[in-house]
């Protein structure tokens, strides 16, 4: 069978998925959790509990603060100790709800049993409401509220639901583990979203460096027998997991700049999101747990883990439990090495979409000295959006916002391919990201 991939740009970093064979372990509960009200893209949620309130796991503690926003639930049972600013991983103050853990009692109606519920409900509005009430957000990186994405404007028609199991970032293995360990739930979740979108085609796209995941999903699709659903192996290339690139790879359609995926009839949801949708709709379980990889190039094999964590545990708690920060770690990243956020504050709390704790050694991560551009064009060759990072870099240095916009700086998906491949270590993406911030302001 012909393997699919996106045609334009892209790079091939070393796979380095060291934690591939580490089965998902459940983290024990910490004495206290900090629940951020900003765990999703869009307006922060508004706390709806008061200090001293008793809460149960799965109970709503903050309500959406706008149309694009999401419910936030308590990941544990206990008492609300404080509500106030606490620093997130970037060191910026964000409102957190501090909950002291007492026991592990879940809110009523939440089904924690492992039995699979394969029957797909048919009431579209009720399912959407359930997904919204469970606070499900996209777990592929952007944490966009899922109920908004699954409810495209009536004039547009979804032709294909793509479940993103590409996990193209090096090191990360959390999606891989859930695809291998819980393929049935992912497939049911996909079928639910298929129903919500009006019975369109569904493609589970997985990169071919994960043959076990492809096999597991295929077996599961065959076993459960939902109509119009297939597993598509993709040729390994970064950034395949990017929405635009994935649609191009699977459907051969390119979204226009500024347009949403639905404009070419596609809806992309991450494999982890499919699992969260399954749990929300079939089990009534809100999104308070997720799988996170602890890995890195300076970590010995037995210290690598894939953990089922509760959103609100601090990163430092997880790091300690996993055996502490390795001595030669120079940078800690929340996420993959290509797009992950650097962690400036390890005491920060995890959020719904926390993908990984990645320890990188100085050798692997410290940037080389910036040299002059020799016009080799590698950045332009690597750019999956067909942009010219060398040109954008030059314009950004000159502060020419108009020319930056003309050269489609806002179309940059910040995948990092340009800086990754620049032989002169020119901080292309630093400048382009900054220019994007300025260009959006104007």
């Amino acid at each position, binding site marked *: 069978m012909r393997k699919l991939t996106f045609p334009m740009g892209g790079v091939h970093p070393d796979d380095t998925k060291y934690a591939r064979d580490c089965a998902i372990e459940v983290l024990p509960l910490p004495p206290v959790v900090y629940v951020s009200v900003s765990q999703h893209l869009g307006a922060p949620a508004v706390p709806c509990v008061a200090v001293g309130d008793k809460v149960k796991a799965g109970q709503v503690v903050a309500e959406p603060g706008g149309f694009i926003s999401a419910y936030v639930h308590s990941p544990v049972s206990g008492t609300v100790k404080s509500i106030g*600013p606490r*620093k997130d991983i*970037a*060191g*910026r*103050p964000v409102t957190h709800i501090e909950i002291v853990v007492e026991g592990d009692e879940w809110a009523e109606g939440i089904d924690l049993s492992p039995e699979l519920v394969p029957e797909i409900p048919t009431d579209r509005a009720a399912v959407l409401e359930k997904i919204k009430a469970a606070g499900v957000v996209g777990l592929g990186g952007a944490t966009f509220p899922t109920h908004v994405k699954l409810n495209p404007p009536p004039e547009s028609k979804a032709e294909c639901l793509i479940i993103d199991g590409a996990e193209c970032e090096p090191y990360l293995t959390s999606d891989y583990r859930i695809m291998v360990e819980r393929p049935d739930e992912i497939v049911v979740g996909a079928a639910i979203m298929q129903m919500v979108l009006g019975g369109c085609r569904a493609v589970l796209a997985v990169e071919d460096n994960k043959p076990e995941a492809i096999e597991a999903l295929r077996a599961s699709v065959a076993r459960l027998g939902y109509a119009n659903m297939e597993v598509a192996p993709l040729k390994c290339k970064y950034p395949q997991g990017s929405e635009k690139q994935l649609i191009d790879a699977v459907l051969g359609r390119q979204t226009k700049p500024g347009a949403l995926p639905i404009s070419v009839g596609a809806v992309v949801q991450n494999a982890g999101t499919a699992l969260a949708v399954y749990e929300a709709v079939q089990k009534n379980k809100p999104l308070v747990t997720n799988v996170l990889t602890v890995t890195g190039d300076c970590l010995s094999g037995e210290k690598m883990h894939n953990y089922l964590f509760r959103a609100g545990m601090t990163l430092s708690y997880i790091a300690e439990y996993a055996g502490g920060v390795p001595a030669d770690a120079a*940078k800690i990243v929340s996420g993959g090495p290509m797009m992950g956020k*650097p962690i*400036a*504050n390890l005491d920060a709390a995890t959020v719904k979409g926390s993908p990984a704790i990645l320890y990188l050694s100085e050798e692997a*991560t*410290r*940037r080389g000295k*910036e040299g002059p551009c020799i016009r080799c064009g590698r950045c332009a060759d690597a750019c999956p959006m067909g942009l010219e990072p060398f040109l954008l870099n030059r314009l950004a240095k000159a502060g020419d916002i108009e020319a930056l916009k003309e050269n489609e700086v806002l179309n940059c998906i910040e995948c990092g391919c340009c800086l990754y491949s620049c032989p002169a270590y020119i*901080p292309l993406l*630093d*400048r382009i*990201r*900054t220019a994007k*911030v*300025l260009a959006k302001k104007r």
Partner: protein
Amino acid sequence: MTETILWTVAILAGLGLVLSVILFLIAKRFRVEEDPRIDKVEAVMPGANCGGCGFAGCRAFASAAVAAPNLDGIFCPVGGNDVMKQVADILGYEVQEQAPMVAVVRCNGSCANRPKTNEYDGVKSCQAKAALYAGDTGCAFGCLGCGDCVAACQFGALRMDPETGLPVVDETKCTACGACVRTCPKGIIELRKKGPRGMRVYVRCVNKDKGAVARKACAAACIGCGKCAKVCASDAITIENNLSYIDFEKCRLCKKCVAECPTGAILAVNFPVVKPKPSPVEVNKEESHA
């Protein structure tokens, strides 16, 4: 040989004549009529084209001044009252005098006061750093130290102090054009009234964290304790979001707040050094104090 030279001269001279006629005709045909006062106004402008007035350069300022019915809201901060008087004379308008302003850096998070908590390894730009995270210290509000303001200043009035890692304003060169204020992503630079003989009092901190958090991040942080507001006789000090702010329009430069501040976050500049009263024994030493 002679013939060649003559031909060459003739052809070149003819060419020059024809081209100059064309140039003359084009200049005549595409001549743009402009109010001559624009040139006059532009001539008295400082010519820095800094944009501090809000217009795109001195010529745009001159055009706007000529087109406007009066000089309300049209002020060249660089040229100040002197230049504005000349502009007003040319246009026959009334001038609105403005108090001279100066840029002040409202952060004292020097390397010593505010220890680094991580190492920034990216492009040396405050804008880029601010787009990424809160900064390489425990303070999420203060100076990022990459010197965007220094680069933005066209008058060479700003420099980074290598010892503190903070920008320093040279008030003799500062024109209050506001370029640094617009550039600083943290908004720590403010244009304040220069004050009589340059004397002014301001809070050198923008940290809105709670006192304990702010103090932990920076030894010179304003902790929002409110002692300054209590001693202020002119009601110039407000405390909002755990941060004190002195209104320079109301401040009477009594300096009581400076003495009261427990973290030394309030700074008074250009006040005459108070000489300790010479005791009779030390009269002879007075000269060395001066």
